[in-house]
């Protein structure tokens, strides 16, 4: 019997001819990413070395990436001190792939990794962030781990005692209708699978609608695979992957691709017709509480957020600018835009999107996670409602347990910003 994508990747990374779902392996890690929580990883890393008499040295500094994004610029003295501690560690260990708070090379970790060509097809990527699943967009097996697990990887260079996950195959055929975006696809899928429908599994994406999807959209769908509980999402890499790595990420060397075997074993297959999709929305307070936008159209909102590792990319900002051009953000609504990286910020500026958005009344803020996790900018007041292109709407996520967050595509967010109420972009846009 053949192997799925994740089985092939884990077989290669653990030096075996073949592995099967359920087997326990110790794959070598090709890329280990952390953000501000590197502060905790460093603490645990030193704990591991405690009493060994050995000098605490990471296994391979060239395979570690650290990106500041969650609280940038620092919102408190405590965060600033943590960031300082991480900078010192990075310098001492010789970690070159360090992205500090900068307008040229800074941004959200799940944008920085792909746009710098750090992720390639077939890699094993781990990150101390649950949305590390994003990097499956480039054909890597990428999954989130906790800080202690990362400290262990920094020490040994391998992920210990990993059970090879089973795979759910999702085949998406057809062509997306206007104003229906990859975000609508992944929300619809999460609604169908539920928040734990893919727990401990990998979601492998196939089909014509995926093949014709740009890498930005693939990042969106793999990003949110974790919201169905998945260990990772993965797209079979193809010409688009090569194109992205060469043209956008500036990778000069050849990029070998890999594909699952035709007789690979899947636990379950789900078919979706992109042409039949309508704009979706995840209602408070769970990501799987998904409805067509029309079901909650007319609900007043006070804050609109466009950004995050899910939908803060150039094409997301372009969609919003297209809808808001010549229009105004409704009075009583705050529209906040957070480009996912400094590079995207500059591109959006050069393309005129940011001017369009600001003329409409939006506030454009620096690249970073922004209000997505409720620690920095854009917290909500009691009883307020936010409509956001981010990926989580758990109670308290945007900084206030007495508020509500709806999740949607940038088209829905922009159309709703104009109307001041939740709006289907196919009509109001």
């Amino acid at each position, binding site marked *: 019997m053949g192997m799925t994508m994740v089985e092939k990747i884990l077989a290669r990374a653990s030096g075996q001819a073949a592995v099967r779902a359920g087997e326990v392996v110790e794959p070598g890690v090709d890329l280990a990413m952390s953000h501000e929580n590197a502060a905790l990883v460093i603490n645990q890393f030193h704990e591991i070395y405690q009493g060994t008499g050995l000098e605490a040295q990471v296994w391979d500094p060239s395979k570690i990436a650290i990106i500041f994004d969650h*609280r940038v610029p620092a919102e408190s003295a405590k965060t600033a001190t943590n960031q300082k501690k991480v900078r010192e560690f990075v310098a001492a260990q010789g970690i070159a792939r360090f992205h500090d708070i900068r307008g040229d090379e800074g941004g959200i970790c799940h944008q920085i990794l792909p746009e710098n060509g750090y992720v390639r097809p077939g890699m094993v990527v781990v990150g101390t962030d*649950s949305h590390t699943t994003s990097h499956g967009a480039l054909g890597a097996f990428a999954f989130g781990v906790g800080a202690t697990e990362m400290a*262990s990887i920094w*020490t040994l260079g391998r992920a210990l005692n990993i059970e090879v996950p089973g795979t759910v195959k999702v085949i998406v055929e057809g062509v997306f209708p206007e104003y229906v975006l990859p975000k609508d696809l992944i929300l619809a899928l999460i609604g169908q699978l539920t928040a*734990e429908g893919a727990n401990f599994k990998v979601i492998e994406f196939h089909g014509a609608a995926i093949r014709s999807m740009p890498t930005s959209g693939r990042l969106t769908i793999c990003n949110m695979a974790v919201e169905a509980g998945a260990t990772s999402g993965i797209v079979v890499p193809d010409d688009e992957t090569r194109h992205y790595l060469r043209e956008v990420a500036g990778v000069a060397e050849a990029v070998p691709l890999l594909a699952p075997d035709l007789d690979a074993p899947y636990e379950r297959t789900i078919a979706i017709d992109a042409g039949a999709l309508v704009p979706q929305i995840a209602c408070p307070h769970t990501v799987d509480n998904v409805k067509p936008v029309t079901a909650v159209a007319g609900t007043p909102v006070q804050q609109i957020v466009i950004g995050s590792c899910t939908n803060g990319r150039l094409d997301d900002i372009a969609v919003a600018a297209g809808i808001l051009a010549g229009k105004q953000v409704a009075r009583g609504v705050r529209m906040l835009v957070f480009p996912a990286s400094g590079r995207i910020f500059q591109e959006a500026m050069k393309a005129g999107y940011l001017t369009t958005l600001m003329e409409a009344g939006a506030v454009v803020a620096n690249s970073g996670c922004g209000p997505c996790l409720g620690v920095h900018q854009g917290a909500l007041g009691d009883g307020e409602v936010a409509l956001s292109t981010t990926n989580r709407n758990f109670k*308290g996520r945007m900084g206030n347990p007495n508020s509500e967050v709806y999740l949607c595509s940038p088209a829905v967010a922009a159309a709703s910003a104009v109307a001041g109420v939740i709006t289907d972009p196919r009509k109001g846009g």
Partner: protein
Amino acid sequence: MGKVVLKLGDDISTDIIYPGRFMATVLPTETPQYTFADLPEFNARLKAGEFPPGSVIVAGDNFGCGSSREQAASGLKGPDLVIVARHFARIFLQNAINLGLQVVICPEIEANEEDELEIHADRVVNLTREESFAVVPLPAARQAILVAGGLVAYTRQRLLDERK
């Protein structure tokens, strides 16, 4: 034997267990003060030391979904709480095992606050209801880490073995 001090439903996210706004606090010695900060009454009783070690939180499906933040596990480990849930989200389960937080997968568990539970390797006995519920073993792949008492100790041993 432990008393149920909190009963929760399905899909309890790490944003509820340990809200994002306290993530700048990382040390396991400091995180417990923010555990369930948005359940103020529970948080106050926890900080007041009202729950003896081994007190139990009972939850439904998918406990610990969401963020990979390890503070969610360390904040529960500090006061030595035990989590009995119908099912856990992957990263939280790994973090719990890595930190030595006692987690029990008990798909049929029925228990209310104040119930007394007795936790065995293969079953949870609810003494108050006089009922017993089967336990699903933790992932076999993680047994060695469990035996070592956590991932720090386990990795340290592996490191020393490799450098010999």
